[in-house]
């Protein structure tokens, strides 16, 4: 049989019953460890602050010796300035456990959790649960009626045992629930994204500090901020509301007023008091999207509001109090904005504590499929109609969506819109290859337009080259051809277009017949100048 070893604190309350013979009539958890008929302990490792509890320690050790002569008792002097201080207790116990030489092959370990502060109990539990202390929990309970010699009862709790799996599972589920919740229930596969969500979950549950969500438009910052709010509501018991503001829409005089409120007469048109969005978010969460667009004055006021939880409204000197938590979103590189003097470095420093980068869809192409299913489910919820892809159609769309061609400049917002379009165009709930092909062509048209100057028309390569021809076009050629076609459309003649396109080489006199050079280029795609202008 392995040696049985118990770790435990001397109970400075329960074990301290005074030195008289009457102590034997009281239940003392540590001494009772040596009195159980069915528990033969080989060793007890007693933790105690000996400076304060020397007499108590000698008595407990002596009494253990009497009741259980075969049990060796080792006393460890552990100084805890404040046994209710979590950090202190945990690090003291952690150090103790790390320094202890465990011989699990020959010894079974138990942690006596009946003595010590609640903080001690929690720390023991954590150490056992994380297996830093490779033992089971031992919980001693007093007898129902105290009587001399009755050691009460004890229970051994093995956190590794299968029957405690449901408890562990519940923790895991809870955790999965919250991370899944943060992901809006989308079973994302991107390891990077999932890791980030787990971090956000931990931060959101514990911290009240501002969070900064970076990432391109449509990456899901707004939805994530809303989910974080719901999580905080649950975990931190937030009583207030979720207030979302896109700073890009706050320009000019109205910006400060919208955020901080104003008093009547603060400026022309200020006919009554206005509370402002920061006040609306009191006790809740304020999501400032596109924070990089905020003016410098507003930035200064915002910083003050974050730090002091109070701020003066425009035109007023009676400060308004608002205790809100803040999430900022941006698709800009704020550090760059700071260097350019467009963003205050002190505000950036305040925001940059918990910064998370939400990758765009291109960086999370493995998440396209789960998002596709999510969007279909959402469509079904919103429209009461189940829509599914044909297998072939689904494969074709995914191949396109995850392919190198697909740009998804609006990221998940674009993907959602695309799927909603296909679902709407589906016939009797089936998205066919025909619907997918149409959608792919539509997306290409959209993206070609965006790829160049946003003000110009998109080049429809399918119209120009036919569907198959457009399919065969390399991305490299697509970009070049798009620019060539655009120039052709702006010029009246082939020669003029040639001059514009080859101007640089013309100036170096490296090229003479620009028109001919353009014709030959267009011919490679089976195109003529006039056709380009059509």
């Amino acid at each position, binding site marked *: 049989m392995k040696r049985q070893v118990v770790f435990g604190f001397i109970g400075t309350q329960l074990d301290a019953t005074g030195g*008289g013979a009457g102590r034997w009539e009281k239940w003392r958890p540590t001494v009772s460890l040596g009195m159980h008929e069915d528990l033969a302990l080989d060793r007890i490792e007693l933790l105690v602050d000996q400076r304060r509890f020397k007499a108590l320690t000698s008595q407990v050790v002596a009494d253990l010796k009497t*009741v259980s*002569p075969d049990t060796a008792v080792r006393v460890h002097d552990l100084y805890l300035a404040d046994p209710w201080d979590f950090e202190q207790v945990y690090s003291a116990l952690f150090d103790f456990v790390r320094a202890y030489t465990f011989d699990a092959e020959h010894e079974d370990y138990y942690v006596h959790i009946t003595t010590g502060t609640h903080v001690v109990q929690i720390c023991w539990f954590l150490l056992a649960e994380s297996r830093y202390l490779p033992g089971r929990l031992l919980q001693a309970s007093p007898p129902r009626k105290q009587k001399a010699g009755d050691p009460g009862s004890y229970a051994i709790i093995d956190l590794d045992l299968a029957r405690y799996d449901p408890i562990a599972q519940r923790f895991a589920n809870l955790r999965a629930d919250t991370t899944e919740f943060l992901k809006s229930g989308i079973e994302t596969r991107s390891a990077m994204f999932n890791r980030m969500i787990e971090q956000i979950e931990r931060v959101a549950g514990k911290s009240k500090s501002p969070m900064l969500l970076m990432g391109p438009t449509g990456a899901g910052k707004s939805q994530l901020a809303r989910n974080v709010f719901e999580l905080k509501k649950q975990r931190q018991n937030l009583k207030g509301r979720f207030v979302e503001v896109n700073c890009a829409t706050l320009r000019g005089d109205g910006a400060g007023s919208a955020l901080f409120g104003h008093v009547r007469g603060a400026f022309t048109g200020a006919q009554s008091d206005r509370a402002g969005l920061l006040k609306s978010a009191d006790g809740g969460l304020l999501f400032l999207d596109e924070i990089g667009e905020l003016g410098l004055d507003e930035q200064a006021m915002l910083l003050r509001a974050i730090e002091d939880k109070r701020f003066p409204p425009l035109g007023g000197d009676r400060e308004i109090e608002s205790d809100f938590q803040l999430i900022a979103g941006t698709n800009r590189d704020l550090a760059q904005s700071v260097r350019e003097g467009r963003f205050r470095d002190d505000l950036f420093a305040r925001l940059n504590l918990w910064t998370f980068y939400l990758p765009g869809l291109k960086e999370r192409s493995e998440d396209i499929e789960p998002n596709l299913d999510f969007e279909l489910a959402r469509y079904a919820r919103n429209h009461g109609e189940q829509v599914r892809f044909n297998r072939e159609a689904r494969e074709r769309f995914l191949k396109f969506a995850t392919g190198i061609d697909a740009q998804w400049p609006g990221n998940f917002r674009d993907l959602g819109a695309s799927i909603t379009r296909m679902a709407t165009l589906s016939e009797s709930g089936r998205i066919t290859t025909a619907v997918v092909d149409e959608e792919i062509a539509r997306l290409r048209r959209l993206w070609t337009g965006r790829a160049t100057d946003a003000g110009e028309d998109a080049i429809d390569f399918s119209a120009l080259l036919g569907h198959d021809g457009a399919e065969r076009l390399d991305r490299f050629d697509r970009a070049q051809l798009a620019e060539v076609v655009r120039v052709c459309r702006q010029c009246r003649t082939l020669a003029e277009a040639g001059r514009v396109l080859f101007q640089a080489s013309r100036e170096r006199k490296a090229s003479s017949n620009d028109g001919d050079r353009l014709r030959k280029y267009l011919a490679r795609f089976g195109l003529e100048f006039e056709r380009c202008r059509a």
Partner: protein
Amino acid sequence: MDKQLLVIDGAQGEGGGQILRTALSLSILEQRPIRIERIRAGRAKPGLMRQHLTCVKAAAAISAADVRGAEPGSTTLEFVPQALVGGAQHFAIGTAGSAMLVLQTVLPPLLRADGPSRITIEGGTHNMLAPSASFIERCFLPILRRMGAEVELEVERVGLYPAGGGRIVAKIAPSALRPLALDARGERRGIGAEALVAAVPEHVALREITRVADRFKLRREQVSHRDLGTRTGPGNVLSVWAEFDQVCELVTSYGERGVAAETVADRAADALQAWLESEAVVGGHLADQLLLPMAMAGGGTFVCGEPSAHLRSNAELINRFDGARIGIRAEGRHAHRVTAS
């Protein structure tokens, strides 16, 4: 291995602990390997408890036994004695066991050791669930001596449950036991009482012996009391005995919180009175303890009252070994005769 393994059902009859101790003693005496199965089966906490393990350990120490299954909760124990070793032994057993039960286990075999033994046991001497040191001194050992045993027992310190701290020393010389017949009590020599208190007011002891003295019309010098101080205890033990030419009976009563000293005294006095009025020569506890020495002596007889389940299962166990047979038969209306042959 010369002798065949004897398999014993540890759940038979009543006393799980008594069966264990008798089996250990006989195993050593006959140098016969035993396996006890189903130890204390059906109890709330089945299997061996620490108080049993202290006896197993002590038995192993005097017999150089190979032991398997000696751990708390074990329901099977294998015990293979290799020798019988007398000499000096020291056992510290703590709260979990009774020093007297350990003595009861090792004493019979040590009577057959090659040389004298000196056994020191530290632990409880007066425990509600075991014969007290006073009982062993006044009732059991005198009869054992008359059977030929050279045994001396000194209770150096009384140890009460749970504080313990008692200490006894037993000196045992190799002795051949002779059969003894206890057919009648003989002349009554007297009744006595002793009250022990530890960390309990002295008046408790005084009230107890006064009550006993009243009940049995005793003179002051026939009763006594002792204050054990605060070293052991708190506790209060009252022993009341009746001594006859052939036999002595002693009953023990333990003081409890909330129970008047007079009630404690009455309990003991009532029990003794019941024995006095019975046809039994030997009391119930003494009967249990005399079976093994009788079997060792190869003969002998006594008259007792209604045999307990304890006594019967103990007798059955002894009969499974090679020595003398124990027979129990009714004699008269309320008495039984126990015989070894």
